[in-house]
C-alpha cells in the first residue's frame, strides 16, 4: 500500500473483518421455488448464466467432436451423416442457445436496471417468461438431438430441409422458433426499460455505453427475430403440407428462403456482437481510469451498426445468381457497415492514451477481443468484396471469419464481462493469476484453431466436409491442436469461478473503483437494488466524481 503506486487498482476491504452483506438477492429467499418463480432480474440473470453455460459446454463438446473427426482426412471417427448432425447441433446450440442470449440474458438482465438506477426491468414477469421460453426451446433442441439429431445445418437451407432429409427437422425448427420468442421478449423488456425507467438525471448521453449497445441489439432482436420465426414456420409448412413457397416445381422460389433467412441471420451477428462491444467499453474505461474517447461516436456507431445491419443480408448470396445491380448495392452497404466497427476499435485504443492502465483479467480479455475482432472484421471485408467473395464463400475462410467475430469477439467479451462483474454478482473475487492464465490460453488457442482455417479456405476446402483431400491434413491437425488448447482455456473459468463462490476474497462494493451506479451499491446487491432511487448528478465515466465521493466517505468514517 505504502509503496508509491501498485500495478493494480483492485481495492478490497480488509479481509479479516470483511463480510458479505447480511441480506442480499441471493440469500433473500431460499428454496428451489424462490428461484423458479423469481421476478428479480438478478436472479433471472443467474438462471440464464447456468443455462447458457450448460448449453455452451454441450455446443463445445460438439465442436470438440467435429475437430476430432477432422484430424484425419477420412470420415473414420463417425459416418458422414453423424458428422453432419454434429455441426448442425454445434451451430444451433452455439448461436441460438448461447451467443444470442449469453450477454443480454446474463449481463444485460443483471446490469441494465442497476446501471440506470432502477429497481427492476420494466416487465419482471415477462423477463421470467423469456427464460422459460428459452428453456422450452433449449429442451426441444435437446429433444431433437436425443431423438436422433438433425442434419440441416443451422441454416435450414431449402429444399434440402423441406424435401430431402428424414431427420428431426420440424422439431429443431420448432425449437428455434420458440427460442426466438425469448429473444423478442428480452428485447422488448430492454427497450422499454431503457426508455422509461432511467433514474433522475440519467439522460441518454449519461448512460453507460453498455446500455447503448444493448439498446441497439434489442432493436435488432425485436425487428429481426419475427422474420426468422416466419421463415421457420414456412419451412415447417412446406415440409408437412408441401405448400410450395420455396419449391420451384410448384412455382416457389428457393432463393426466397435465402433472402428471408439471412434477413434475420445477418442482423443476428450484430445481436451477438453489439452487447459484447458494450462490455468492452465498460471494462476499458474502468481499467484505464478514463472516460471513453469519443463517447458519442461509440454510442451512435452501435445504432448505426444496428441500422445498416438490416440492409446487408444479400452478401450471403453473391454467388447465387442474384441480380448484379443488387449485388453492387449490397456490397457497398457491407463496406459501410464495417466503418462503425472500425471507429469503435480506434476509440477504444485511444481511450488507453493518457490513461492509467492496469491489466486485470477482464482487461486482458478485452485486449483479446480487440485483436481478434479486428481480424474478424477485416476478413469480413474480403467477403463483402464481390469478386473476392466468389472464391472464398462456402469455404473454411468463412468459418474462420465468423468464429473470429462471434467467438473471438462475442465470447471473449462475455468472459471479460463475467470476470468484471463477478464480484458484483457473487460478492467474491475470482482468483487473479489463474484467470489471467485462462485469458492468455484462450487467446493463443483461439488463434491456433482458426488462423489455419483462413489458409484452408483460400486453398478452397469447402465447409461442412466430413472427409477432405489429404493435402489439407496438416492445417486441420494444427486447427484441432488449437481447439484442444482453446477447450482447456474455456474449462478453467468454469472451475475457478465455482471455487471462488466459497473461497474467493470478499470483494466489497467497488473492487475496481468503477464509476457505474451498479458499483455504488453492496455486492451482491440487495433485492431492491437501491434503498433510495439514485440521482445521476454527474457525467458517465466521471472518475473525479468517484474520487471525491470516496474521499468524502473516508473522512466521514475517519
Amino acid at each position, binding site marked *: 500500500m505504502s509503496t*508509491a*503506486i501498485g500495478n493494480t487498482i483492485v481495492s478490497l476491504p480488509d479481509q479479516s473483518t470483511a463480510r458479505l452483506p447480511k441480506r442480499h438477492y441471493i440469500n433473500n429467499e431460499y428454496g428451489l421455488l424462490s428461484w423458479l418463480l423469481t421476478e428479480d432480474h438478478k436472479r433471472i440473470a443467474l438462471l440464464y448464466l447456468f443455462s447458457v453455460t450448460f448449453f455452451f459446454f454441450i455446443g463445445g463438446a460438439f465442436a470438440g467432436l467435429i475437430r476430432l473427426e477432422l484430424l484425419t482426412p477420412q*470420415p473414420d471417427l463417425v459416418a*458422414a451423416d453423424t458428422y*453432419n448432425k454434429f455441426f448442425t447441433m454445434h451451430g444451433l446450440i452455439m448461436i441460438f442457445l448461447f451467443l444470442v442470449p449469453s450477454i443480454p440474458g446474463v449481463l444485460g438482465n443483471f446490469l441494465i436496471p442497476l446501471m440506470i438506477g432502477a429497481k427492476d426491468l420494466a416487465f419482471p414477469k415477462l423477463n421470467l417468461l423469456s427464460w422459460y421460453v428459452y428453456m422450452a426451446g433449449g429442451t426441444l433442441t435437446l429433444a431433437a438431438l436425443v431423438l436422433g439429431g438433425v*442434419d440441416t*445445418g443451422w441454416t435450414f*437451407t431449402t*429444399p*434440402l430441409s423441406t*424435401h*430431402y432429409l428424414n431427420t428431426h427437422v420440424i422439431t429443431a425448427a420448432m425449437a428455434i422458433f420458440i427460442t426466438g420468442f425469448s429473444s423478442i421478449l428480452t428485447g422488448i423488456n430492454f427497450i422499454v426499460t431503457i426508455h422509461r425507467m432511467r433514474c433522475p438525471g440519467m439522460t441518454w448521453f449519461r448512460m453507460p455505453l453498455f446500455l447503448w449497445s444493448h439498446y441497439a441489439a434489442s432493436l435488432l432482436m425485436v425487428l429481426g427475430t419475427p422474420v426468422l420465426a416466419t421463415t421457420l414456420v414456412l419451412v415447417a409448412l412446406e415440409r408437412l403440407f408441401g405448400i410450395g413457397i420455396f419449391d*420451384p*416445381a410448384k412455382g416457389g422460389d428457393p432463393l426466397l428462403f435465402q433472402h428471408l433467412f439471412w434477413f434475420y441471420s445477418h442482423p443476428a451477428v450484430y445481436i451477438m456482437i453489439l452487447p459484447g462491444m458494450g462490455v468492452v467499453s465498460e471494462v476499458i474505461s474502468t481499467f*484505464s481510469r*478514463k*472516460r471513453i*474517447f469519443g*463517447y458519442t*461516436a461509440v454510442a451512435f456507431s452501435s445504432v448505426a451498426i444496428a441500422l445498416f445491419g438490416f440492409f446487408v443480408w444479400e452478401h450471403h448470396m453473391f*454467388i*447465387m*445468381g442474384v441480380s*448484379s445491380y443488387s*449485388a453492387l448495392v449490397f*456490397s457497398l452497404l457491407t*463496406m*459501410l457497415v*464495417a466503418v462503425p466497427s472500425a*471507429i469503435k476499435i*480506434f476509440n477504444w*485504443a485511444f481511450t*488507453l*492514451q493518457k*490513461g*492509467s*492502465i492496469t491489466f486485470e483479467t477482464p482487461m486482458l480479455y478485452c*485486449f483479446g477481443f480487440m*485483436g481478434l475482432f479486428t481480424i474478424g472484421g*477485416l*476478413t469480413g*471485408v*474480403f467477403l*463483402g*468484396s*464481390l*469478386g473476392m*467473395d*466468389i*472464391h472464398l*464463400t*462456402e469455404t473454411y475462410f468463412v468459418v474462420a471469419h465468423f468464429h473470429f467475430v462471434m467467438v473471438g469477439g462475442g465470447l471473449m467479451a462475455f468472459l471479460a464481462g463475467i470476470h468484471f462483474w463477478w464480484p458484483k454478482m457473487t460478492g467474491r473475487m475470482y482468483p487473479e493469476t489463474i484467470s489471467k492464465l485462462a485469458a492468455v490460453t484462450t487467446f493463443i488457442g483461439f488463434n491456433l484453431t482458426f488462423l489455419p482455417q483462413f489458409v484452408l479456405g*483460400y*486453398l*478452397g*476446402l*469447402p465447409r*461442412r466436409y466430413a472427409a477432405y483431400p489429404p*493435402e*489439407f491434413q496438416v492445417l486441420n491437425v494444427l486447427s484441432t491442436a488449437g481447439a484442444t488448447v482453446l477447450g482447456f482455456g474455456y474449462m478453467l473459468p468454469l472451475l475457478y469461478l465455482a471455487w471462488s463462490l466459497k473461497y474467493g476474497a470478499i470483494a466489497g462494493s467497488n473492487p475496481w473503483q468503477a464509476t457505474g451506479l451498479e458499483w455504488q451499491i453492496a455486492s451482491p446487491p440487495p433485492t431492491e437494488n437501491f434503498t433510495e432511487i439514485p440521482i445521476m448528478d454527474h457525467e458517465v465515466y466521471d472518475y473525479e466524481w468517484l474520487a471525491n465521493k470516496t474521499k468524502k466517505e473516508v473522512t466521514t468514517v475517519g
Partner: protein
Amino acid sequence: MGLSPVLWQFLVNWLHNASLFPAEASTIAPYTDALYFFLVLMTIFGTTLVAVLVVFFSARYSRQRSPVATQIEGSTLLETTWTIIPLAIFLVVYVWGALLYFRIYNPPTNAMNIYIVGKQWMWKAEHPGGQHEIDALHVPMGRPVQLTMISQDVFHSFSVPDFRIKREVIPGRYSTVWFEATKAGNYRLFCSQYCGTQHSGMVGWITVMTPGDYKTWLEQSTSGQSLAQNGERLFASMGCNSCHNGTAAARGPDLAGVYGSKLTLTDGRQILVDDAYLRDAILNPSAHVTAGYAPIMPTYQGQLSEDGLIDLVEFIKNMQSDYRVQQTLVTAASGESAPTTPPQAAGER
C-alpha cells in the same frame, strides 16, 4: 531418432503440402490473387496498427508510469480521420471487388458451352457433342468454357479453387459460370454448398488438356448421339413438332433461329431468348406465350428430366431451319400411328 513414425509422416506431409495458395490455373486466378494480396496487406496493416496502439499505450500509460489519467473528451479531427481512411480503403476494395465480380461472371461471347447437372451426390457433365461424364470434366486449355448448370434436387455449388471460380447450382433455374484454363493438369472440383449426407463426397476432377489431346478425347468419348440429336428425338416424341413446325398452319411459334432473338410476349414483355427462357417456356408455357399465339401449350413439368430439358434446349438452340421437323411430320402423317412417337424419326440421319 526417437521420433515416432506417425509424427515423421506428419512432418513429411507438412513439407510436401505446405502450400498457402492454390495453383493459378485459369486466366482469372491472377486477378483474384492480386485483390487477395491487397486485402491480406490491409488486414496485416490494420491488425498491426491496433496491436501497436494497444501495446504502446499500455506500456506508456500503465499505472506505474502514469498514475493519474488525463481525461479527454474525444477529438473530432482524430475521429474523422479514422472514419474517412477506413472508409476510403473499403471503397477501393468495393470497386476492385465489383470489377473482379463482373470479370468472373461475364463470359466472353466466344465461349464454348458445356452443361452441368448437379444431383445428390454427383456432378454430371454433358458436352454438346454427346460426351457424358460423371464427377469429371475434360476441357481444353486456352479456350473460354462456359458452364450452364442446374440442380436436379437441392442447392449445390460448383467450385474449382484452382480456377478461383464458384457458382451456386440451383434447382429450377440455370446458372452459368465460365473460365479459361491456362495450364494442363488435374484440378479439384468441389461441391461447396451443403447438400446432405454425402456432401463431402460430391467431388471430382477437372482435367485440362492441350487442344490436340482434347480433340482426341472428344472423338474417343462420344456416345454417338449429340445433345441436339437427342433433343430432336425428344422434340418429336413429346409432340412438340405438331405445333412448332414452321408451317403456315402451325399453332405454335416457329422455333428455327429463335435462340438469341428478342421475343414480344402477349403481356407485352420483351424477352431475350436464352437457355433459361427456353427451359422456363417448356415447363411453364402459360407464363411465356409469344404475342400472336393462343395459350394452348400444356406444361411439361414432371415429364422431362433436367437432362432431357438440356437436350431440347440444345436442339432448339442449334435449329436453323424447320426442314427436318417438317420431315418428321411427313413421316408421321404417312404412317398409321398417332403423330406423337414416330419411331424412325430420329433414326433417319
